[in-house]
Each structure stands twice: as structure tokens, then as C-alpha cells.
């Protein structure tokens, strides 16, 4: 594989095929209420068999060496189906690690070698996603570090073997560290969540052994945050589209007052507005993929903007999906509420609307 558009389409299609068979929304309904909250067999299938984790890892580190869009396409396919677990967070962490340069190569080599699933832990109580307020401490030097602190609302940690963590060393410098979930001093407590398709964990670190992933003097923590936002944006744009499709399909077949309700102009116009929003979200997400691929300097700006736009779009589409489905959309067995809850988690994770909007304005120089 060389990463042509055809390769990309093939990768997307093969992942979609697996997901349609093993991880459709009906299956997600079952998985999300189970004890683990994700499907270990699916994780195994996509990683060990489909080689998902090596997709964009450079060849000299054991990966397939494909470019960014291969990984983002998979994140989108996972997002469209609201697949729970650490698959999207793994790809996100891998993309971030790639962007961190040579210092992250040992981690990437290990990911392929040991088939490691990953999560990214940024938020802390009080600080939220404000990197400047990060209080987790890293002590040590070179390759040997010990981390102490508590990270909250961490997605994917329930299914990840390694967690990337932001922490501050004794010099006050913020860095990115990799912690093995199984290491001493690591306590992961996974919560039940409003958005049942995305469990969130509290990760407590007490002198936990860690390796540093980013190069000193860089903006590794920011790279991580930007990629988490990118994940939320891509997932949300894809989910918004899937949710609109679901709704439009329903409106075409559901009859009331003797005709398909999709023929009522008031509903048609609302769907048209949703289609415009979805097209905009998709374009914004696509642009972000280009930004990540080319390593453009606008990464932080574009990721913040896309997360804002795409999460809001998903929320709008999903809220309308419930309303337009009427009573059935209010039932637990229907899928509409899964998108709705996903929309809210995408809005509230990785920075509130107000915080992210302020960042966008500052980064745009307004």
C-alpha cells in the first residue's frame, strides 16, 4: 500500500465492512450496557487482524507507513457507528505520537510490536482542559520518570493498555508521558456515563513509572490536545451524517395523516438546514485532516474550530432526530438518543464551547 486515494478507499471499505458486521448500532446497544462497555473481540479483530494500530506508523518502526488520512478514515467509520472502546483513542494517540517526531518513535515501535491500545489523559479536576493549569507532576530524568496526579474524564482508558498523560516536571515544563495501565501506582476507575457509548475513567497516578514521549522544549501537550479535539470533530461529523441519514430514511417511510411525513414541508426545510450543517461540518473536518496531513501551522486553530463546529452540528442533528422520530425516538431501544448523548459528550469534552471559542478567536488573531 502506498497511500493513494484508491488505497484509502479500500482501507475505509474494509473497516466499514467489519464494523457493519460486528459493530452496528444494535450491537453497540448491547455492548454499551455490558460490564466492560466495549467489545474486546472487535478490538482484537481490528488490531491484530486488520492491523489498525500499524496503519500510520512508519514502516521503519514496523507499521504500514500510511499517511494521516488512513487513520482519520477509520476514526470516522468508528464515529459514524458510535463504536465504544479505545480504538479511536488509539489511532488518535498514534497520530499525535507521529506528530511529536523522533522522541515518540520508541512508543510507536512498541505500539506495533505489542499491539498496544492507547488512551489520552489530559483533563484534571479544576483545570479541565486548560493545559496551563496541569498539576500532575513528573519526577525523574531521561527515560525514567514517576508520575503523580489525577486525570479525569479520560475516554478509552477502560480498554487501553497505555495511557498518554500530560504532566509537569520539576522545572515546570509540561510534557507528554506514557504510562502502562498495569504498572504499579496506576489506578483506573471507569465510570458509567451519560453517553453510554463513551465510558470515561478517572486515572490516579501515584509515583507511577513512565517514559517521556515528547521532546523537551516542544509543545507536546498541545499536540495531544489538538489531536483529541480532532478525534471528537471527526467522530462528530461522521456521526452527524449517519444520524441525518437515519432520520431522512425514517421520514421517507413513516406515514401520518395518510402520507409519508417526509413530504411535510416544515420537516423538509428543517432537514435541509441539517443537511447544510452536516455539509459544513464535513468540510471542516476534511480541512482538518489536510491540516494534520501537511503539518500546517494552523493545527491548534483548525482542531479547536472543527471540534466546536462538528460537536454542535451533531448535537443539532441528533436533537432534531429525536424530535422528528416522535415517540419512538424517545425510546431506549431506538438509536437516536445514542447520537444525542454522543453529541453532548463531544461538546463537553476537551473544552467547553466558551473556552474553545475564546481559543479560536485568539488563535485567529481576532
Amino acid at each position, binding site marked *: 500500500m502506498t497511500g493513494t486515494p484508491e488505497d484509502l478507499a479500500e482501507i475505509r471499505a474494509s473497516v466499514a465492512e467489519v464494523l457493519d458486521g460486528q459493530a452496528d448500532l444494535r450491537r453497540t446497544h448491547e455492548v454499551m450496557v455490558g460490564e466492560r462497555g466495549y467489545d474486546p473481540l472487535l478490538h482484537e479483530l481490528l488490531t491484530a487482524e486488520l492491523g489498525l494500530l500499524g496503519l500510520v506508523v512508519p514502516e521503519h518502526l514496523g507499521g504500514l507507513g500510511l499517511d494521516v488520512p488512513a487513520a482519520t478514515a477509520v476514526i470516522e467509520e468508528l464515529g459514524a457507528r458510535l463504536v465504544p472502546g479505545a480504538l479511536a483513542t488509539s489511532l488518535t494517540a498514534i497520530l499525535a505520537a507521529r506528530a511529536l517526531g523522533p522522541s515518540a518513535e520508541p512508543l510507536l515501535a512498541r505500539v506495533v510490536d505489542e499491539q498496544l491500545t492507547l488512551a489520552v489523559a489530559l*483533563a484534571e479536576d479544576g483545570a479541565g482542559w486548560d493545559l496551563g493549569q496541569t498539576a500532575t507532576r513528573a519526577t525523574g530524568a531521561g527515560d525514567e520518570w514517576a508520575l503523580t496526579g489525577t486525570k479525569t474524564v479520560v475516554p478509552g482508558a477502560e480498554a487501553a493498555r497505555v495511557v498518554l498523560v500530560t504532566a509537569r516536571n520539576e522545572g515546570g515544563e509540561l510534557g507528554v508521558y506514557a504510562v502502562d495501565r498495569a504498572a504499579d501506582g496506576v489506578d483506573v476507575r471507569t465510570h458509567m456515563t*451519560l453517553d453510554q457509548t463513551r465510558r470515561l475513567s478517572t486515572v490516579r497516578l501515584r509515583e507511577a513509572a513512565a517514559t517521556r514521549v515528547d521532546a523537551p522544549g516542544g509543545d507536546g501537550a498541545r499536540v495531544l490536545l489538538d489531536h483529541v479535539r480532532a478525534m471528537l470533530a471527526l467522530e462528530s461529523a461522521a456521526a452527524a451524517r449517519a444520524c441525518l441519514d437515519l432520520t431522512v430514511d425514517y421520514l421517507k417511510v413513516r406515514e401520518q*395523516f395518510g402520507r409519508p411525513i417526509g413530504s411535510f414541508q416544515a420537516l423538509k426545510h428543517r432537514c435541509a438546514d441539517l443537511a447544510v450543517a452536516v455539509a459544513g461540518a464535513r468540510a471542516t473536518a476534511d480541512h482538518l485532516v489536510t491540516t494534520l496531513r501537511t503539518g500546517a501551522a494552523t493545527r491548534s486553530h483548525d482542531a479547536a474550530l472543527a471540534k466546536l463546529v462538528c460537536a454542535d452540528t451533531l448535537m443539532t442533528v441528533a436533537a432534531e432526530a429525536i424530535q422528528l422520530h416522535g415517540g419512538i425516538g424517545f*425510546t431506549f431501544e431506538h438509536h437516536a438518543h445514542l447520537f444525542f448523548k454522543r453529541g453532548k459528550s463531544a461538546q463537553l469534552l476537551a473544552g467547553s464551547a466558551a473556552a474553545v471559542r475564546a481559543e479560536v478567536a485568539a488563535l485567529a488573531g481576532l
Partner: protein
Amino acid sequence: MGAPVSDEQFRAEIRGWLREALTGPFAEAVGTGGEGREHEAHELRREWERHLGRAGWIGLSWPTEYGGRPATLAQQVIFHEEYARAGAPGRLGHMSEQLLGPTLLAFGTPEQKARFLPRITSGEDIWCQGYSEPGAGSDLAGVRTRAERRGDHYVITGQKVWTSLAHLADWCFVLCRTDPGSTRHAGLSYLLVPMNQPGVTVRPITQLTGTSEFNEVFFDEAVAAVEHRVGAEGEGWKVAMGTLGFERGVSTLGQQIGFRRRLDAVIARARSNGAWQEPALRDRLVDAYIGLEVMRHSAVRLLASAGEGLSGLEASISKLQWATWNRSLGELAVDVEGAGALLTGPGYELDDAQTHFLFSRANTIYGGSNEIQRNIIAERLLGLPR
């Protein structure tokens, strides 16, 4: 209950009674039930209905011969205000008192009134509403549940859905098609059906909150006495539309007291967690306050001009307003919480903000969706062509 009392006396009386009643065994019932919490404390709330009935607080303004009690419109409003203010439990008897009772008073035979109304005012009978059907949604004229007359009984077969409290109710008022060849509004009848019989099966619907408030009700050769048909055979549409009109305005102001309590709680939370310092959230909170003020003024104005409660049109405006408002407040409640709102208790146990956020999505769907209300307002208030 003797001579008329002044509004002040009335308020003092209900307030005093509630204060006393909600101590002791009913103290636990405070705050239970209501929107999104209909699954809570059934037994206690059933007992509470009887307690309320024994004290004469059910059937305000109904004739005393049926256990009612004289009360002016203002006093009915006062009752609902004080009830909400005290945090008294969500009424299991809501549909009995607000929907069926007025329907029987308007359309029932003397025998039907004598038989059913006293058991409503005493808090003994709980009624549920059998209107919506799968596949018919807001289109009541699409009812397909059939009732076939056999001698002095109707034999009912079909399915209803979105029937709240069906698993607790003693009776159900059901819209059935008695003329098998009929379509749309014609050929429907309004039957009173006992729930405790072999032909009736209730299956709870699990909502997006994970809890159950609504049910599916299956009628498989269930029976209803012909003498328990309200209105003439084939006139069920007229009777049912009358019932919809009885969603009276007097409870609106009480409902708004409840809204204000919720809004105050969200604002208090925003103040304590710092969200109030966030201008965009603060503006949304202030706008919610303003929206509630507008609803309050609207309700006062409509009650003042309508005298006897809301007409269908005014009810449509009011429904659209409050449903949309409450849904927005639900979203605001979780936005104020921030990412912490994403964590639930074990077993998907939701807090107030989360429940409000999720359950309020139903507000704009049930009881005539926003879309139906807009149709009504456009066609009947504004006179726009069909």
C-alpha cells in the same frame, strides 16, 4: 364545604395542610414523581392520592355531590402554586382529575358521573389515557384499535402506546373504532375500560433515560360495558377532542412554580461552580429567566381573559412555549455542570440535571408535538389555509 372562603384563607388552608401532610410518613414523598421520575415511590404516592382525596383537595370546582369542592379559578391556581411550592409528590391522579373528570362532567351520563367521579375525588381510582397507537403518533384519527359490540359489551382488540401510568391504573379511557368500515374521525367511540382483566396486557417502554414512564397496552378481546361508553357510538372523536381541550390552564401557573424552582436550582449551581462567570452561560440563564417571566405573564393574561381555563388555541401556544422552554433549560442544566455531567451513578442513575436534560426531550413530543401545535396555531389562530 360550607360558605365560600377568601383567596387568602384558601391559600393559608392548603399551605397549612400541605405542611402538615408532608411530615410523617409522606415526608419521603416530597420531590418524588413528576417529569422523568414517574417511576418513583408508587405505593407511597398512591396512598398520598387517597390522603389528598380524603382531605377534599381533589376535584376543586366540581359539584359537591361527586366529592368536589367549591373553588374559584384563582383558588385552583393557588392550589397548584402551593402544591408545587411545597414540593408535593407528582400526581398519579393527574389524568383522572384533569382529563377524565372534566370529560365525564361534560359528556357523561348521570350514572357514569355517580359511579366514577366520587372514586376520583377520593383518590381511589387511577386512570390512564388510551389514545396514541403505534404508527399513528399524533394523528388520533388514525386509531385502529377495534371494539366490536356483543350484547351489552364491547370486545376490544388492538394496541395503544405512550400510555403513562398504565401499569398502575385501574381504568383506561380508550378511543376505539366501533365502525369497522370507517376511516379518520368517523366511527370512533370513547370507552371506559377496566385494566384489571385478562384481555389487557401492559408492557413498559424503556425511555432514553433508562427508566419507564410510558407503556404499551395490548387489548386482546378485552371487554368494556356498553354503559361505560361516553357519548354516542361513533362520537368518540368529539368526546376525545373535548378532553384534549380540558388540559386546563389552571395547572399552568403551578407548573411554572416548578419551573422556577428548577431554574433557581440551575442558577444556584452555576453560581457555586463558577459557570455564572461565563458570559455565554449567564446570558442563557438570564434568557431562561426572561422566558419564564413571559410565560407567567401569558398565563395570567390568558386566565384573566378566558375565565374558565385555556381554549384549545391558547393551550397550543402555552404548550409550545413551556415545552420548548423546559427542553432548553434541560440542556442548559448539563452545560452548567460541564464535563462532570457526563458521569452517572452506577446502573445509569441520573441526577436532576441529567434527568432534566434527557426527559425534557419528550416535552416537545407528547401531548401534541410542537409540530402539531404549530399546525393548530397556523390554521386555527392565524387562519392560514390547509
